[in-house]
Every structure is written in structure tokens, then in C-alpha cells.
């Protein structure tokens, strides 16, 4: 498995200046500067995209599906994130956006709020039927799942084993479209429109499925301009779109991509909603030492304010959030999914993970605990000698991490510009 295949993030060697912004921004300390360029450590990266946000040179690129990849499919289906509705000003209605997506080449567009409503109902039922363990952790944000696999492996069994709306929507479409349209399954491409690069990893390397039901993910960033161009192309039909809205948005489902969106409808359970990577790590640390047991559900989203704060969105997250909250308040508690459909899908176990999320432990200092202890002691000795400036000049984000790299055999103490003078 090559680095490029595993991660959606890659560093443009020409644009990279070898500065320290990404080093410091990385919550899992997965970046090092070697020979003046940033490099990603695959085993540590959780695909959160924090580095994309902080790189002043635009050198960190996310490998999402490109528009031309769609040509491989005879019939192209888009499943846009509900965050897309917050990217345009208030005069642009959700239906306008769905229409624009069709004009730019999708044969069909399926809006996700109804499936969000469906998964929320399934979540409520799961919480009711499973009193243990507590707190359960919602699994919609793929970075949270990856973070738990790597940093909090003992919490894997706290993850609610219900697939996220994008996968369920694709699964339903995959099960039916080929038959209805009489097109072979391979000819149908189902593409998510995503606010973050992590969805691409969850498609290529799903944590709880044998194979993703999605064929790819196009970033909001990449599709924004084509949508803008397609929005205004034909004003004549605007009145038609307004008078005959073809999609019934779900009030319960429309806000689920915002932090607090999943917990909002769970009125009978004790829940909290956390957003932002640092706060998510802080709260998961608390759960791991046995706290927060009185909560039923912990909703974590690593982007600030939820998916509206994703690294691949266009609009600033405050505006996007306010627009989506506008939709939420207009729609109220409107439901669009039949209870009988929810019951049927739950009964058929259609919404569940195919297999549990497995731990992907970060390797200890050494496979042999005796050696690991020896290295940990060595590391403490090295830390004492380092200048504690955390300047990043050695290529590691801070002195402690440099000491860690040294005992793991991946760096030398002379990498520290302050040390080399002293030592030589």
C-alpha cells in the first residue's frame, strides 16, 4: 500500500516551503520536515485535514475524485452533503443547487436529509436497545472513527455500529437503481459531494464495511464554481423550481451535519455534542479513564462547528451554519420518512456495520516491553537535554517528538540546531 493510495492528503513538493505551520497544526504529530519538505507519517495521520487549513502556501492537496473521473460511468449519481446548502447566499434555494448539479452532468441527484432522518431514528432505537457501554459514540465523522482506532483503541466498542447517511443512501441506491434503470451495476457511479478529505479515505478504506457503496467523493471546493455557473444559466425555469419543489427536505435531517445535529432529535437521551479536534481528543481522553458514563451518546465532529467547518468547504463556516440553521427553523420537526420504512430497514439489518471497527494501535516504542521501557527512559534523558523551544527547526513539531523520533531511530540529536553546536 503506497502512501498516496492510503491517504487523501499529499504534499505538493514545489509549493512546500518547509515552514512549520503544518507541523504544529497536526493534532496527531504526523508531519515531519525532511530535507526542507513536509512528509506525512501514514500510521499517525487520521485524515483530519487540519494541515490544509494552516498551510499558507496551499501546498497540501487532497486527492478527491475529479470531474473527469466521472466519465467512466454511464449513469452518474450525486449525493451531496447537506453542508452544500449553506455555501450559497440566501436567494439560492436547495432545489436550485440540486438542479445545478444535474445541469453540470449528474443524471440524478439525491438529497441526504431524509436519510439523515432515517439514521437518526435508527440511532435512537439502538440507544434504547443497548444500555451498555456508555457513552456510545456516534460514527458519522470518519476522522473520529480513525482517531478512536488509532489513539483510543479501547473505545472501539463504544462506536455506534450504524453506517453514516452517505453510505446508507448509496447502499439503497445501489440495491435498486440498476434494476429500475436496467443499467449494469458497474455503469452506475455514485459520488458523494464532500466538505472534507476524510470521506475519500472512508470510501477507499472503510472501517466497518468490506467495500464502500460510494464510488468517490468530489470536494465542495472543486464543484463550487461549476455549480455557480450552472445556477444562473437559465433564469426562465426559476419560477418552475420554486413552484414545484421536487425534494421534500427533512427538518430532522437537514441540520445533522452541524455540531449538535444528531443529538438535537434525541430528546429522550442524555447527550453532548463536541466539535473541534482538540476538544474531541480531550473528551475521548475523559471517556478512556472511565468518565462521562452518565451520558448516553457522545457526538464528536473534528471540524469546528461540525461539517460546515470542513477543510474543503468554500463559505466561511459561520455564514454556512447560519444558513443551515435557517433551513432547520423553517422546516421545524418535519419528517419525511415513513415509520414503516424505518422499521423495515432496521429489521433487515440494512443500516448496520458489516463488521465492528477494529483497533489500529499506534505501535509502542518497541514490540518488546523491556526494550520499550529502555527507550522511554532514554527518551526522558534526551528530553532533559533538549532546549524546550519547540521551534520545529529539527523537522519535528516539538522537542518531545524529536526525542521520540530519536529513540525510534528516525532522527538524530544533531537535527536540533541548538544541540549540534553544544555537542560538537
Amino acid at each position: 500500500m503506497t502512501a498516496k493510495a492510503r491517504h487523501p492528503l499529499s504534499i505538493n513538493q514545489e509549493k512546500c516551503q518547509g515552514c512549520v505551520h503544518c507541523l504544529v497544526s497536526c493534532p496527531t504529530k504526523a508531519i515531519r520536515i525532511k530535507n526542507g519538505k513536509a512528509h506525512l507519517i501514514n500510521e499517525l495521520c487520521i485524515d483530519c485535514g487540519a494541515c490544509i487549513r494552516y498551510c499558507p502556501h496551499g501546498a497540501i492537496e487532497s486527492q478527491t475524485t475529479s470531474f473527469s473521473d466521472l466519465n467512466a460511468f454511464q449513469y452518474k449519481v450525486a449525493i451531496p452533503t447537506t453542508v452544500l446548502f449553506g455555501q450559497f447566499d440566501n436567494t439560492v434555494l436547495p432545489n436550485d443547487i440540486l438542479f445545478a448539479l444535474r445541469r453540470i452532468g449528474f443524471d440524478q441527484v439525491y438529497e441526504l436529509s431524509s436519510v439523515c432522518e432515517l439514521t437518526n431514528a435508527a440511532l435512537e432505537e439502538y440507544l434504547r436497545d443497548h444500555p451498555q457501554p456508555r457513552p456510545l459514540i456516534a460514527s458519522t465523522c470518519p476522522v473520529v472513527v480513525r482517531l478512536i482506532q488509532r489513539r483510543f483503541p479501547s473505545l472501539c466498542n463504544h462506536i455506534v455500529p450504524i453506517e453514516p447517511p452517505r453510505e446508507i443512501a448509496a447502499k439503497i441506491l445501489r440495491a435498486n437503481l440498476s434494476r429500475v434503470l436496467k443499467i449494469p451495476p458497474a455503469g452506475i457511479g455514485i459520488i458523494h459531494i464532500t466538505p472534507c478529505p476524510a470521506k475519500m479515505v472512508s470510501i477507499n478504506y472503510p472501517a466497518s464495511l468490506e467495500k464502500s457503496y460510494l464510488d468517490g467523493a468530489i470536494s465542495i471546493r472543486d464543484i463550487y464554481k461549476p455549480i455557480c455557473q450552472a445556477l444562473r444559466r437559465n433564469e426562465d425555469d426559476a419560477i418552475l423550481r420554486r413552484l414545484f419543489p421536487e425534494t421534500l427536505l427533512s427538518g430532522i435531517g437537514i441540520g445533522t451535519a452541524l455540531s449538535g445535529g444528531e443529538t438535537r432529535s434525541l430528546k429522550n437521551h442524555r447527550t453532548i455534542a463536541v466539535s473541534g479536534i482538540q476538544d474531541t481528543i480531550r473528551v475521548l481522553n475523559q471517556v478512556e479513564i472511565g468518565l462521562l458514563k452518565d451520558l448516553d451518546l457522545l457526538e464528536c465532529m473534528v471540524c469546528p462547528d461540525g461539517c460546515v467547518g470542513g477543510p474543503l468547504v468554500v463559505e466561511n463556516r459561520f455564514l454556512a451554519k447560519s444558513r443551515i440553521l435557517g433551513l432547520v427553523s423553517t422546516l421545524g420537526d418535519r419528517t419525511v420518512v415513513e415509520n414503516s420504512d424505518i422499521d423495515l430497514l432496521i429489521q433487515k439489518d440494512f443500516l448496520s456495520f458489516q463488521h465492528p471497527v477494529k483497533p489500529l494501535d499506534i505501535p509502542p516504542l518497541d514490540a518488546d516491553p523491556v526494550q520499550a521501557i529502555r527507550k522511554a527512559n532514554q527518551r526522558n534523558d534526551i528530553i532533559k537535554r533538549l532546549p524546550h523551544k519547540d521551534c520545529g527547526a529539527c523537522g519535528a513539531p516539538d522537542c518531545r517528538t524529536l526525542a521520540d523520533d530519536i529513540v525510534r531511530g528516525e532522527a538524530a540529536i544533531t537535527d536540533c540546531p541548538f544541540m549540534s553546536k553544544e555537542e560538537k
Partner: protein
Amino acid sequence: MNREIVFRQKFEIQGGDFSRGGEVSCEVKNLLKELGLPAPSVRRAAIASYEAEMNVIMYAEHGVLDLSATPLKIRIVIEDSGPGIEDIELAMNEGYSTATPEMRELGFGAGMGLSNIKKNTDELEITSEIGKGTRLTMVVLTERHQP
């Protein structure tokens, strides 16, 4: 088995600093993970040291957590300068607490601390002197220890 090899690190705990409550036990947990010790033992040690850390923060002026780990066992000694425990046997009872209403408002003081420590350790020794302080010695055996 090499019994000589020990990892050792000390941490300062500031009494009354609720805002940093849990930071030390979190670091203990992460260090133990890095040593490759079995996850269930790490978790037990982390839970026990969190309870002990919070006791220092709630009642004492200052404390030191002294962690030592071998492949076979995790030993954590927490020593504080604080009021001491008057009746250790009574304090061990589930539900017994001397927490003030303020502490209870913060969600502490359910009287589960020491009994939770006992549940998550294989050896526990408490010595205390009124007006001086308390010393907790907790041992968690790793799974390797058991035959």
C-alpha cells in the same frame, strides 16, 4: 525475565486546580500505552490514577505522582501534603465522602473514589497522617504477570 528494567517518571499535581484535573493521569495512560503494556491493565491504572489525582486536587495543597512500570507491573505512588484521612476504613466505603457542596456541584464527591481505586488495582496501600498528608501506593499487575 529482566526484572531490573523500570520506567520511572514523576508528575506534579497542584491542589485546587480543577481546570487541569485529569491531565496527569492522561499522560500516565499515554506513557503506559507507549510502553506496549496490555490495554486492559493500562486502562485500570489510568482509572485508578485519575481518582487519586482528583483526590489530591480536591483535598490537598500539592501532590506528586510517582509512576514506575516494568513489563510485569505498574506501580503508582501518590503522595500529597493535605489534611490526611481520619478513618481510612470508613473512607474506603462506597458512598462515603467528605466532599463540600461546591465539589459536589462540580460532579465530584460521590464517595466512589477510593472504592473505585480498590476495584482497579491489584494491591493498594494507604497511609495517612492527620494534618500532614496521604500516601497511596497502587499496583496494577499486567496480564503477563498471571500464569
